[in-house]
């Protein structure tokens, strides 16, 4: 069996949409609502290209693993956003938050549409609360195949 075929088989062999049914690890309705609201706010900031404001929510040691598996620092991510051109829309959905004290795990689906294409990805973010404010410390996403 070809490697690529096998990998696809392994990776697609199951489709259990459990994210909507798993209860919160440490139920904190306020924190969960705050994280969901923050996620929507961050998407709006990117769409409106308010990168200076967006930057304020990134931890100094923020790391992103992009859809190609490349590890990017906070500075690299921001430079990429600032160099981008064209209008787009971003719609986070299927948001599920699990909180562990001052740590929150957010999983969800993100639809990004531009004039040229629409891309849907599944992502996982980690937020840490410092002095009452949530900061994004980690993001990893994978592009989903076209439906």
């Amino acid at each position, binding site marked *: *069996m070809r*490697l690529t075929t*096998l*990998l*696809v*088989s*392994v*990776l*697609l*062999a*199951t*489709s*259990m*949409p*459990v*994210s909507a*049914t*798993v*209860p*919160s*690890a440490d139920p904190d309705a306020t924190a969960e609502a705050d994280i969901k609201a923050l996620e929507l706010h961050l998407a709006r900031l990117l769409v409106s290209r308010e990168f200076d404001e967006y930057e304020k929510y990134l*931890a100094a*040691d923020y*790391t992103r*693993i992009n*859809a*190609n*598996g*490349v*590890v990017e620092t906070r500075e690299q991510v921001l430079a990429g956003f600032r160099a981008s051109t064209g209008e787009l829309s971003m719609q986070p959905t299927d948001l*599920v938050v*699990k909180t*562990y*004290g*001052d*740590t929150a*795990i957010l*999983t969800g689906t993100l639809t990004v549409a531009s004039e040229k294409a629409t891309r849907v*990805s*599944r992502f*996982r973010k*980690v937020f*840490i609360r410092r002095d009452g404010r949530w900061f994004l*410390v*980690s993001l*990893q996403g*994978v*592009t*989903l*195949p076209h439906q």
Partner: protein
Amino acid sequence: MNPSPEEELRELLAARTAALVAGDADSLRQMLSDHFVYTNASGVVFDRNAYLEFYVTSGEMRWHSQDLDDIRVRVDGSAAVITCRIHDRASFRGAGFDAWFRSTQVFVKQAGRWRYVAGQTTAVEST
């Protein structure tokens, strides 16, 4: 001298890999938070039971080895975010494969123990 949090986490990573390769679901279950969530390279989301079933107890997936490198550990209070590169040599339904991934693994310290609470992998080229 007590190990540092980073040392504890690196030991835990090694123990996790050893349990996975050995097919030791009981040991793995103890490392995973009750509300563990894992997103694989196709974007499929697993809870703890689904993860253990698919990757260990079903017997469909068998790891021959798993090697981690470029491990970066960031500890922030009772939380830790680890990124690494993973090299899997395994078989799925009897057919072998050799693949590389980039992974994020998130741990939270609960009642004095680090628990694996979330993970995600992305397939990458070997170099």
